[in-house]
C-alpha cells in the first residue's frame, strides 16, 4: 500500500511541476526556435538525473532512523508548503495558477530578448535550462525522500518519468500550455500525501511508535485530508463574507481581492 501511494504521490507532484516547466519551454521554443531550447531542456534533465544518481546511493548509507527524521522533515516542509498554497487558492485568498497568463508573459519577454551567445541563443538555452532545473528540483527531492526510505528509488523514478513523458506528449500534441490540468487539485492531493508521510516517518525517526504500526498511515492521511477540507470550507466562507462586505462598502473593496498567483 505504501508503495502504491508513493508512486501516486511522486507521479502527481511530477505532473504539476512538469506542466509548469512545459509552459516555460513552449513559450521559449515558439518565440526563439527549438534548437537552443531543447539543448536547455536536455541540460536541465541531465543535471536532475545526475543529482538522483549521485544522492540516491548516498542516502541509502544513512542509518534508517536518521534518514526517516531528515526525510520526514523535508516531506513535512514541502507538503505543508504545497497544502498551504492549495488551501489558500481553493478558498480564494490566493489567485489560481493561470498557465495561459504565464505563457503570454513568457512569450512577451522572450520576443524582446536579444539573440546570440555560445549556445546559439543563450536566452532560450538559459530559460529552458532554468525552467526544467528549478521545477524539477523539488520532484528530485521528493523522489529521493520517498525512494530512499522505502528502498525503491527506481520505482519512484519510474513514477516521475511517466509523468514527464505524459506531460511532454500532451504538450507536443496540443502545442499549447496545459491550462486544463487541475493543477490546484493535484497540488492539494500531493500536499496531503507528503504531509501524512512526513508525519509518519518523522515520528518513527524520532523514536516514537505509532499505535498499529504501518496501518497508522491511513488514519493520518484521513486526518490531514479532513483538516485541509475543513480549512478550505472555513476560509472560503471568510473570503465570501469579505467580498460581500466590500460590495456594500466600497472603501473596503481592496480587502477582498485575491493575492498573487505565485
Amino acid at each position, binding site marked *: 500500500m505504501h508503495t502504491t501511494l508513493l508512486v501516486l504521490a511522486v507521479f502527481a507532484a511530477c505532473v504539476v511541476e512538469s506542466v509548469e516547466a512545459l509552459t516555460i519551454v513552449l513559450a521559449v521554443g515558439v518565440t526563439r526556435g527549438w534548437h537552443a531550447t531543447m539543448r536547455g531542456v536536455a541540460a536541465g534533465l541531465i543535471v536532475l538525473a545526475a543529482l538522483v544518481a549521485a544522492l540516491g546511493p548516498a542516502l541509502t548509507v544513512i542509518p534508517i532512523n536518521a534518514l526517516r*527524521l531528515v526525510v*520526514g*522533515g*523535508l516531506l*513535512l*516542509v*514541502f507538503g*505543508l*508548503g504545497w*497544502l*498551504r*498554497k492549495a*488551501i*489558500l487558492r481553493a*478558498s480564494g*485568498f*490566493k489567485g489560481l495558477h493561470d498557465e495561459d497568463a504565464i505563457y503570454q508573459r513568457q512569450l512577451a519577454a522572450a520576443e524582446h530578448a536579444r539573440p546570440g551567445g555560445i549556445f546559439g541563443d543563450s536566452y532560450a538555452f538559459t530559460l529552458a535550462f532554468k525552467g526544467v532545473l528549478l521545477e524539477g*528540483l*523539488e520532484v528530485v527531492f521528493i523522489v529521493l525522500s520517498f525512494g530512499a526510505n522505502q528502498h525503491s528509488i527506481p520505482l519512484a523514478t519510474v513514477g516521475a518519468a511517466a509523468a514527464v513523458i505524459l506531460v511532454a506528449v500532451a504538450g507536443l500534441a496540443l502545442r499549447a500550455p496545459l491550462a486544463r490540468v487541475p493543477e490546484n487539485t493535484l497540488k492539494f492531493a500531493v500536499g496531503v500525501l507528503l*504531509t501524512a508521510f512526513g*508525519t509518519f516517518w*518523522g*515520528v518513527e*525517526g*524520532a*523514536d*516514537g*511508535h*505509532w*499505535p498499529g504500526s504501518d496501518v*497508522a498511515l491511513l488514519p*493520518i492521511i484521513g*486526518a*490531514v485530508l479532513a*483538516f*485541509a477540507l475543513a*480549512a478550505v470550507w472555513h*476560509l472560503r466562507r*471568510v*473570503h465570501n463574507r*469579505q467580498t460581500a462586505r466590500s460590495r456594500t462598502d466600497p472603501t473596503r473593496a*481592496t*480587502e*477582498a*481581492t*485575491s*493575492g498573487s498567483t505565485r
Partner: protein
Amino acid sequence: MTRVAVALRGFAAFWWDFIVGDDWRIAAAIVIAFAATAAVATTSFPAWWIVPLAVLITLALSLRSAARAARNN
C-alpha cells in the same frame, strides 16, 4: 560586496527559499516537534501524538496569518 560574496548570498537565499519556503515558522515548528517527540520517547509516555498535533496547529496558524495578510494587502 565582492562577486563571490554576492554569489554565496544568492546561493544561500535560494536554498533557504527552496527548503523553508513562504513561512519559516512551519520549518521551526517541525524541528521543535521532532525534538519534543525524541525527548518524550525516552520516557514511558507515548510520543506519537506530538508531531501530528504540531502539524495541524502550525498549518492553522500559518493559514490564518496568510489570510490576514491577503486581506490587508
